[in-house]
């Protein structure tokens, strides 16, 4: 029998595997996807970005999506028919392989949203079961073990740190970054270097970044990116069973007894372990629990509270762009603009919280980055003229050539809290089955109006910067459409077993050997991408499990 069986090999499961196997325990991971090494990753836009080679085909595995309308109804979308995918990366290391690695910590107030900012009507705000101070040592650990590069500046929203600076120096940046810094100075904003989970030099038995120009969405061919695979799973002796889709957990009243999984060809297997750790990414973790109902837990495993799947959250906000055109630049500036490979790496957190009309709001983060280098997508965006008419022929060729060779787009992404509500949750549809014959997950989507209000506030600040820098065609979009790769909640942790699924250590209140360590535990999401917090929390839980097994 294994000591620990982990379901899912991404950022939520891998720290447990790394810590426990390095401590001598017998650990197995069940991973639905395949395994890859650095040698397997290429910058093939067609395979990676246009044919989705790292996610399951929607005709085999999909979700049902119910989107809330203002009149109170939901519109139902079949993931296969609509092409709406919530898959992020089915491979060893999960979607951390494909992340851009924009790494921000949560801030102390993110752990006590209700106490600091008060109730918000229509939202289920609660304080976290732990404080920033309890998680801080693990943020620091991730910096060292996974590898975070950057430079700490003491801006007014800087969270407390136990170490002075990042263990790895910041990555090289493009010259346009200096235009940004100047614009922020003039506006009185505090430009900060974006910390990245990308090694700027050879370290940790991994190679440093080689500035491929294709980071986000792509697997890293040098191992510089701190994916769970490169940073953790390749650095421990854990047993990984690939092509293993876990479809059911069995239990008695107090313990999980077995995990059942199908191999790629549909053969069923099972595994026994002392402790089970579920980390299949938020939506799929809730789906597995709901699909594992039994006579002890008729509403779904670990669901005596009825809270499994509830309070699903994403990252709210949106994105915007501005274009720099040669006509407005000196020759030197043109050369600087077109220098590819180096990162932009600038963020603003000035409005992580702010006051508006005498009311205190939780705000968020704005990350700035160059438009993704994927050339096919960039060309495709030029196919319409200013009046929305489809172009073709020489007129289209001329437009494409001019736009791609004499201008460049700087983008920004706004991250603010997606408030948890009763209308945003995960269920299962007993009548829609995946290729394994298992009911698919149902994603019910709703964005709270405050999410949009805060997003707008932040986007306008970003627009100020782009305009100050001299960008043209500045535009943005803040919406309630969810970013599929920034998902959390569904099994919130808390002290009260009646209102939460997990205890403060991410162990289910109902079953004493079942933990959930992906982003499911988060009752509120903070206003940054989640990966660093998922890693840090998983290292924290690893210490708890280690103690328990010892």
């Amino acid at each position, binding site marked *: 029998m294994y000591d620990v069986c982990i379901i899912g090999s991404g950022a939520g499961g891998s720290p447990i595997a790394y810590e426990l196997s390095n401590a001598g325990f017998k650990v197995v991971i069940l991973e639905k996807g395949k395994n890859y090494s650095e040698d397997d990753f290429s910058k093939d836009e067609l395979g990676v970005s246009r044919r989705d*080679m790292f996610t399951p085909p929607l005709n085999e595995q999909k979700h049902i999506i119910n989107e809330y309308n203002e009149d109170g109804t939901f519109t139902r979308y079949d993931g296969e028919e609509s092409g709406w995918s919530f898959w992020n990366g089915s491979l060893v290391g999960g979607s951390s392989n494909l992340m851009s690695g924009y790494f921000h910590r949560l801030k102390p107030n993110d752990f006590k949203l209700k106490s600091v900012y008060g109730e918000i009507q229509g939202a289920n705000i609660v304080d976290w079961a732990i404080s920033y101070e309890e998680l801080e040592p693990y943020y620091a650990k991730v910096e060292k073990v996974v590898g975070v590069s950057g430079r700490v500046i003491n801006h007014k929203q800087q969270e407390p740190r136990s170490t002075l600076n990042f263990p790895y120096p910041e990555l090289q940046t493009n010259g346009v970054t200096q235009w940004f810094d100047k614009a922020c100075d003039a506006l009185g904003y505090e430009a900060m270097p974006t910390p990245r989970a990308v090694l700027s030099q050879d370290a940790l038995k991994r190679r440093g970044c080689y500035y491929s120009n294709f980071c986000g969405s792509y697997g890293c061919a040098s191992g510089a990116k701190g994916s769970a695979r490169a940073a953790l799973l390749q650095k421990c002796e854990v047993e990984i069973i690939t092509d293993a889709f876990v479809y059911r957990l069995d239990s008695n009243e107090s313990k999980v007894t077995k995990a059942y999984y199908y191999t790629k060809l549909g053969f069923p297997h099972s595994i026994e372990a002392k402790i089970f750790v579920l980390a299949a990414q938020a939506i799929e973790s809730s789906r597995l629990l709901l699909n594992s109902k039994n006579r002890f837990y008729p509403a779904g495993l670990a669901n005596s509270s009825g809270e499994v799947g509830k309070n699903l959250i994403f990252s709210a906000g949106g994105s915007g762009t501005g274009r720099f055109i040669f006509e407005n630049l000196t020759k030197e500036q043109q050369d600087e603009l077109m220098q590819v490979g180096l990162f932009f790496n600038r963020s603003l957190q000035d409005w992580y919280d702010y006051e508006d009309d005498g009311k205190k709001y939780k705000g968020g983060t704005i990350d700035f980055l160059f438009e993704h280098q994927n050339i096919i997508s960039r060309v495709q965006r030029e*196919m319409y003229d200013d009046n929305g008419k*489809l172009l073709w022929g020489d007129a289209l060729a001329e437009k494409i050539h001019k736009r791609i060779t004499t201008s460049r787009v700087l983008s920004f992404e706004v991250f603010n809290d997606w408030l948890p509500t009763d209308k945003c949750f995960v269920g299962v549809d007993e009548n829609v089955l995946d290729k394994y014959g298992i009911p698919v997950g149902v994603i019910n989507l709703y964005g709270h109006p405050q999410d949009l209000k805060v997003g707008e506030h932040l986007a306008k600040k970003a627009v100020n910067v782009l305009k100050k820098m001299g960008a043209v065609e500045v535009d943005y979009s803040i919406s309630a459409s969810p970013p599929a790769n920034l998902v959390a909640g569904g099994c919130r942790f808390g002290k009260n077993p009646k209102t939460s699924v997990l205890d403060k250590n991410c162990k289910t209140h109902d079953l004493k050997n079942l933990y959930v360590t992906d982003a499911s535990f988060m009752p509120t999401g903070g206003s940054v991408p989640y990966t660093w917090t998922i890693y840090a929390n998983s290292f924290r839980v690893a210490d708890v499990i280690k103690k328990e097994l010892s």
Partner: protein
Amino acid sequence: MITRLNSRRIFLKAGFLSSAVFVMSGCELFSITTSEETIKLLQSDIFPKAKELGINTSSYVSIILHHSRVSNGDKAFIKNGVKWLNEEAVKIHKTTYVKLLSTQRQEVLKEIVKTEWGENFMYNMNSYLFEAMFGDPIYGGNNREAGWKWLQFTGGQPRPKEMYL
């Protein structure tokens, strides 16, 4: 491991492209043409730059038609679009698309782009062309990186060792 190229697929590519398309005028069978002829000419009409740069984009459409990750709906739309384009040509100029003069073909395109199917079809055919023209040369288009060079673009490293199909 990465899904490997199923070498059998290479030999299957004939199929739809070279088979007959039955062009109807009302309820009457008007003419028979092949999709390959139509697609080749259509793509050179909507983005002649590719041909100028020596890039063959039409054979890439056969990769799309047999791709494991392109939906059946998208594949069927290519086939239907070829048929409907020819039917529109017959309606306006009394003959199939490939038999028209360049100016007449542009007239047909200006007509179909006013319809929802026509705009979508032209958008999709141009997108497949761009995939061939700006995708990695391993997929058979983007001859000697001519598409990338035209836009002063450098492909990312490492490059794929094989096609993802």
